[in-house]
């Protein structure tokens, strides 16, 4: 009996290790290339690319961290992401509160509308969005705002689902007592509920931040069809991939620099990421 259990456990352990390697390997390769010296990637076919560079070097990091083009792209991406967070939180959090607390006609329709944003093919919706943003009367809108408006559309469903979950965990008694003592709904919401919900909402904000930071399709189509010098980071990275013979060290370093904030945040907001990805799928 216990032997069989051991065998099962061994298989489980083996599979866990294999899965962990599968999940980490690309990240490891990325890191390895980013610290490679020249002879570790230009092999001339005499020896295979080593799994660890002969002489690890951080030169490329030093280069990028003093590169103005990288910094201006990074700051553009940061601004877009922050603006996206601001727009989708301001618009989404109150809606999520009402969805969590009230029953009303048309609630199902509203939830369906929110969910359909996520199912609608972004590659189709990006055509009219990019076209409208390039029309004469909108052309001079700052790029940051254009991209952030598009990203907010994608981020809203996540904010609403995550925040709705957060508000549902807060006992109703809290605001009922406030209202008995004479607070208006708005007052109860802003002064009593919001502060309690803040940690959960912050996780939602981080989720949307990452969504915007990683987003490629809208950023790419909007920047590709208008003349801009500074590109958001993912689009900048893609422009390097398209060049004739891309330097792996450059690509790997930039890739890692783009992913770094994401990897750090993900480990922090695991729990809420789960809420965001499974919302609407299991309920």
């Amino acid at each position, binding site marked *: 009996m216990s032997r069989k259990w051991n065998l099962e456990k061994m298989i489980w352990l083996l599979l*866990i290790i294999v*899965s*962990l390697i599968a*999940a980490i390997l*690309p*990240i490891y*390769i*990325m890191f390895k*290339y980013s610290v490679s010296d020249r002879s570790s990637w230009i*092999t001339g076919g005499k*020896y*295979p*690319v080593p*799994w660890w560079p002969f002489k690890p070097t951080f030169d490329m990091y030093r280069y990028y961290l003093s590169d103005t083009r990288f910094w201006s792209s990074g700051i553009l991406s940061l601004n877009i992401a922050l603006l996206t967070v601001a727009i989708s939180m301001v*618009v989404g959090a*109150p*809606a999520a509160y*009402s969805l969590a607390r*009230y029953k*009303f006609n048309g609630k199902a329709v*509203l939830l369906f*509308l929110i969910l359909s944003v996520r*199912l*609608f*093919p*972004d*590659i*189709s*919706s990006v*055509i*009219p*969005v*990019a076209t*409208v943003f390039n029309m004469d009367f909108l052309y001079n809108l700052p790029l940051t705002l254009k991209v952030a408006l598009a990203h*907010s*559309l994608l981020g*809203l469903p996540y904010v609403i689902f995550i925040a709705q979950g957060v508000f549902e965990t807060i006992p109703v008694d809290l605001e009922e007592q406030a*209202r008995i003592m004479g607070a208006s*709904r708005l007052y109860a*919401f802003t002064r009593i509920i919001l502060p309690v919900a803040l940690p959960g909402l912050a996780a939602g904000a981080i989720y949307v931040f*990452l969504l915007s930071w*990683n987003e*490629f*399709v809208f950023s790419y189509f909007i920047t590709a069809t208008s003349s801009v010098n500074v590109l958001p980071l*993912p689009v900048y*990275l*893609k422009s390097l*991939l398209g060049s004739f013979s*891309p330097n792996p060290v450059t690509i*790997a370093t930039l*890739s890692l620099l783009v*992913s770094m904030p*994401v990897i750090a945040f*993900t*480990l922090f907001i*695991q729990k809420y*990421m789960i809420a965001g*990805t499974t919302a609407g*799928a*299991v309920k």
Partner: protein
Amino acid sequence: MGQDPSLQYYIHMILQGTVLTVPLKGGGEMEADRGRGKIQKLWAETKKNGFLVWTLLPGFLYITAFFVIIAFFLLKLSLTEYRGGMVENSATIANYLKLVQSEEFRSAFLRTFIFVLFVTPLQLLTGLLAAILINRTFIGRGIVRGIFLLPLAIPTVVTTAVLLLMFSKGGHMTSLLMGEYNWFPGIVDYEIAFLSKEPLALGLSMLGKVWRDTPISMLILLAGLQSINNDQYEAARTMGSSSIQNFFFITLPLLIPAISSVLVLRSIEAWKEFIFPYILAPSYPVLGVLIEKYYVQLFDPGTAAAIGIMLIVVIMLGTVSLNWLLKKMQSFLVKV
């Protein structure tokens, strides 16, 4: 909230000191004609639920406005013929006719279909495996789960970049398969060009897609697994069932709702996939890549929009038929 909203409204009015205006308004309503009374009633209703309206309206308007713009312009563009970046004809279905007849569109459609056909079940399998692996208590479970989630967090462009590095000529994978590392046997004796052969390039983009999105299916299936009551396993175990029997006769049937939702959601995602085939198989476009080609490179928003609309139609048809198929299979598998 259990309270009557109109009562709350009165309390609110009293607190605001504006209660006097209410009877006056009511009196006016009685004298007014019916149509106006209706509007006033609606207005009163809106005012009564002011908080609800004002919290929901911005989000509702935001999404609706985008939807209206997207639907209107997508349709308008698809009915406009462009030549050399200039409008040639409007209110014409020339774009659709051109597409239906073109070999390029047909092969792109076929590629997309194959992409969906492979990626969707593969993601179910990898997601199920990961979910089962993680669905027990062990030390470091949180960390393992965090690592399993990493593929989802990393920007898609970065994933494609790493795959490009790994599978390009002179990269790790070609050397590995040629047996240049002494711990791995050589399988082929020439350098495989992963990126310039259609099946391999498409397969690579499928691999990337599956790697990246496995965490999503894992999470949905994990939620499904955790909702299964442990008593059922205990009951089966007392009757002497093995863990393999447990899996096939308890876990799998009870997991069917989660599996269905994974298949439906993942197939929609696979239909609209853009970035992996775009970077890894640009010469063998799927529908999404074709949209980019026409919109960005050929300055032909008309054709791009027509493809976009056809993609939406295809997704709808695909989802409906997948749902139908799943229902059939469920009624075949689970007999109550």
